[in-house]
Structures are given as structure tokens and as C-alpha cells.
């Protein structure tokens, strides 16, 4: 149900069609905002050695919603590991409609070492989007070595299920 800019009443009668459009339909739209989410439950964990941002999964971790022009909140949480014996840095970025949101070293980074699994969780408010269809795709890169994202793939002790979601909030 699409949201309609509410009418400003003056002295005209309250008619059913106006009430349905501007009250009922808008209440329904606010209760069920444009939203998309994906919970990983894959056959194998994800890994990368890329030192520049690449998509983690262009199918599953690329969300699409059609907004009415409001702000969008994007959230991700997951558990990562690295092959590097010393400390290594993981970077995360969101591409909005194919364009990096933050640029530089992304929207989030964390430092950890091999065997030191690290939980990563971030929430990002995205403003200034025109009404219409938008994509939100999670990208990653590593400082060096191999980064692993556990994806509910049955890895012993790390059979965890990350989630990525996007929702219009205003």
C-alpha cells in the first residue's frame, strides 16, 4: 500500500473515499513500510582475499525496496574470522544503487586476529533518496589474508546466521 501525502481538510464534508485514502491507507502504509531482509543459511561460508571492496553475495546480500522518498535504515550483523596470525582489519561498505555509500574505507571496520572470531553489527541511516526502487548491497574487503563470514553453513561452533535488512523509516 503506497503512502499518500495527507490531505489538509478545510470545511468540506468527511467522505469515505478521502478517509480511506488519507487515513486508512496511510495507516496501513506506515504499519507495513517498504522492507527487505535476508538471513544467511548457506551451503558454505563466504571468504575473500580482496583488498578492494567487492560484493559479498550479489544475490543474497543485495536488497531491493521501493521507497516513497523517506530515509532508509540498513542493518547488518554477522561473525567474521581471518587467516592472518597477527592483527587484520575487515572493512564493510554498502553500495546504494551501485554507488559506494561512504567511499574511502567504507562504513565500518574492525580489527581481529586468526582464531579470534569477531561479531560485527552496524546500523546506518541513509538519507536523501528519491522515491522509487533502490538497491542496497553489502561489500567487504580485507587488509590482507583471508576473511571469512560464517553463513550458517554448519561450521562447528560457528553455525551462525547473519542478517542483512533495509527498511524505509520515514
Amino acid at each position, binding site marked *: 500500500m503506497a503512502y499518500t501525502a495527507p490531505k489538509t481538510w478545510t470545511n468540506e464534508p468527511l467522505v469515505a473515499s478521502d478517509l480511506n485514502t488519507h487515513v486508512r491507507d496511510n495507516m496501513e502504509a506506515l504499519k507495513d513500510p517498504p522492507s527487505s531482509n535476508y538471513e544467511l543459511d*548457506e*551451503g*558454505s*561460508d*563466504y*571468504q*575473500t*582475499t*580482496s*583488498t*578492494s571492496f*567487492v560484493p*559479498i*553475495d550479489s*544475490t*543474497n546480500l543485495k536488497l531491493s525496496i521501493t521507497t516513497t522518498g523517506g530515509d532508509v535504515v540498513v542493518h547488518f550483523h554477522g561473525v567474521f574470522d581471518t*587467516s592472518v*596470525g*597477527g*592483527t587484520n582489519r575487515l572493512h564493510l561498505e554498502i553500495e546504494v544503487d551501485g554507488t559506494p555509500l561512504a567511499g574511502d574505507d567504507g562504513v565500518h571496520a574492525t580489527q581481529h*586476529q586468526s582464531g579470534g572470531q569477531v561479531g560485527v553489527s552496524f546500523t546506518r541511516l541513509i538519507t536523501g533518496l528519491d522515491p522509487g526502487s533502490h538497491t542496497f548491497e553489502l561489500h567487504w*574487503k*580485507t587488509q590482507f*589474508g*583471508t576473511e571469512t563470514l560464517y553463513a550458517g553453513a554448519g561450521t562447528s561452533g560457528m553455525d551462525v546466521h547473519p542478517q542483512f535488512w533495509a527498511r524505509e523509516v520515514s
Partner: protein
Amino acid sequence: MKEIVISSLSRVNVDKLDQDLRAGFASEYRGLSIRRQRLIIFVVDSVSDVARDAMINLAEVHDPDELTPEQIAERNRAQELQALKADLQAMDPDNLDAAALQIIGKAVLLYFGRVGLLD
């Protein structure tokens, strides 16, 4: 950046393949990923067909049991640690001879080496 997708590999030693691709194609290779049981090789847009085919070939003949020098060092360190643990457990603390002190010394050095990784 372009992606080369290889679906036919059942097992990959990501660190080793990455090291081999970096050594062979430094100017065209940008990294690799495992994504839904597929190997993705990231290359520059201007990658030549020759380099592309050579990278695919390298991935296809890749032996996942072959280790990088870092992985060999880590395996050796783990084996050394395992042996030391067994020696320490078998030790009689009330009767420490020269050989026992040598084992304790090794364990201490290994411990500080491990802690040193946090620097």
C-alpha cells in the same frame, strides 16, 4: 573490476591460491572470494584474454593440500605446542632435571612468541 566465476572447484586453499595468483598476475589480479560454493576471481577491467585463461588454469590445477609458508609455519607451531603440552603434562614438578628445565624454557619462549603477536 571484473569477476571470473569458476563453479567446478570442490575445495580451495584460499590463502595459497591467492598467493599464487598475486605472484603470477600482480597487475591484473585483485583478489578472490568464495561465494555460494563458487570461486570468484576479481580482475581489473583491462585484463587480457591470455591472463584470464592462465588464471583459470592456475585455479583449476590448484592443489588445496599445498600450504603457504605461513600455513606451514602455523602447522609446525601447532605440532610443537602439542608436543610441549605432552612433555609438560608428563613432568614431575618435584623432580625437575636439566631436560625438564629445557622444556619449560621452550614453553615460555613459545608463550611470549604468541603474546608478541598481539603487539
